[in-house]
């Protein structure tokens, strides 16, 4: 049972699923850097499209994701609307020029530059979201730990990630059980029946046992790990990390190229003062 978590614990069957953890993690990192550094539709659009393709290639049922996708898109749209309301002259700010399109009031004018900027940003955010979503859907926690390790992150940190995932379902079940037993004793969490602060106060009654029982585990778990030689050497190998396949090799070329591009582009940005946001006209 997986408690409807988005990330899955058993490896899937599609191309992306089958890649090694290392490949996925590295690809993800170079793409995130790529998206963070670039504010240029010409650069973002391809990744966005790739993200969409990736998402469909995973053959996951989108129904389960609908809520999240709608939510994130809505939040980001809301965000740029707020931006506009806060400052209709962002175009001016970024491109040093304004071309009137139409206007609501004489303060709230709509300029091509403003629209262009807001669209670029929306696309950038959505692309970032897509890439992370595909990453999340295609990797298992253990692959991620192995991947991070092979990116030079100390295995003690990777272990934190792996262990956290191991115990999330247990803690989640404890949470449910404690919650209901408290409700049976009279805790009121219904927003129609109690105000925010009251509910917050009552949540404390759930938090306390949850915290205590959760951290009670620590001793036993660390004993079990010590007894099986955790922290023995400086290096560690991973059962879940299969050897690089032909596909991994192919993808490796891709992410190496992107990595190189990232470096050059950032360098160029600093040296040649490329404008933050690209604007064609």
């Amino acid at each position, binding site marked *: 049972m997986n408690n409807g978590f988005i990330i899955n614990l058993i490896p899937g069957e599609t191309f992306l699923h089958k890649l090694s953890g290392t490949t996925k993690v590295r690809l993800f990192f170079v793409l995130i850097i790529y998206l963070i550094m670039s*504010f240029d539709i010409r650069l973002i659009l391809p990744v966005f499209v790739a993200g969409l393709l990736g998402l469909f290639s995973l053959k996951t049922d989108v129904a389960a994701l609908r809520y999240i996708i709608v939510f994130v898109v809505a939040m980001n749209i809301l965000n740029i609307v707020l931006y506009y309301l806060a400052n209709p002259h962002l175009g001016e700010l970024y491109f040093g020029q304004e071309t009137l399109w139409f206007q609501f009031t004489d303060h709230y004018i709509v300029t091509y530059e403003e629209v262009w900027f807001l669209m670029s940003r929306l696309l950038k955010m959505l692309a970032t979201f897509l890439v992370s979503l595909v990453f999340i859907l295609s990797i298992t926690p253990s692959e991620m730990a192995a991947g991070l390790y092979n990116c030079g992150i100390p295995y003690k940190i990777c272990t934190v990630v792996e262990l*956290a995932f191991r115990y999330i379902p247990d803690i989640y079940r404890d949470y449910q059980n404690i919650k209901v037993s408290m409700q049976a004793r009279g805790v009121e969490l219904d927003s129609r029946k109690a105000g925010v602060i009251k509910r917050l106060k009552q949540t404390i009654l759930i938090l306390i046992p949850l915290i205590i029982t959760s951290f009670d585990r620590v001793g036993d778990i660390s004993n079990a790990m010590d007894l099986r030689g955790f922290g023995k050497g400086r290096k560690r190998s991973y059962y879940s990390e299969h050897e690089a396949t032909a596909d991994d090799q192919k993808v490796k070329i891709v992410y190496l190229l992107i990595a190189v591009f990232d470096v050059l582009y950032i360098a160029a940005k600093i040296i040649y003062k490329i404008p933050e946001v690209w604007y064609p006209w």
Partner: protein
Amino acid sequence: MKEKTLIQKFLGTWNTKTIVGVAIGAALFGVLMNYGSIRVFTNTSLTTAMIVPVIVGALFGPLPAAAAAGIGNVIADLIGGWGFWFDWSIGNAVLGLFVGALPLYGAYIEDGIFELKHMIIYAVVVIVGTALAFGLVTPFFTYLWYGGELTITLYQGVVGSVSNIIVLLVAGIPVLKVLAARNAKASNLRRE
């Protein structure tokens, strides 16, 4: 046992126990972030997750607390599926550093020590830390990475801060009080 130096207290001792503690903290953070939040309006809610780094800090020190908060936030994104927003993860980590500082000012929850003066210090640290983390650090990275309208970004930071401060004070202090009382060594008990 000799008194640890401030630096040692800050870094915490990274043995297996601490690593497991951070992991459990991160897991708890992830669960509370996704399931333990309290609806305010339709799409804003108070999350109780921020309590977790406080506890981790109390047990293992500020740096572990920061790790638990930072990683916990990433993990929350992973199980929730809301893409990664590292600007917020970093903010949470920074905040963890502050709220997890209890041992630095002598509040040892494990030994049942959490007195009025600690509460006051805690409250101050929470307010300062949150302001710094969500009012400064996160907006800075948001602006740096995703560009955008500064006042709005700051405004969002402020909203985040306020809700966090509420949780950390209204829920945090009672939780700490009870946990401390639970760990206090009972002395001269009489059946009456």
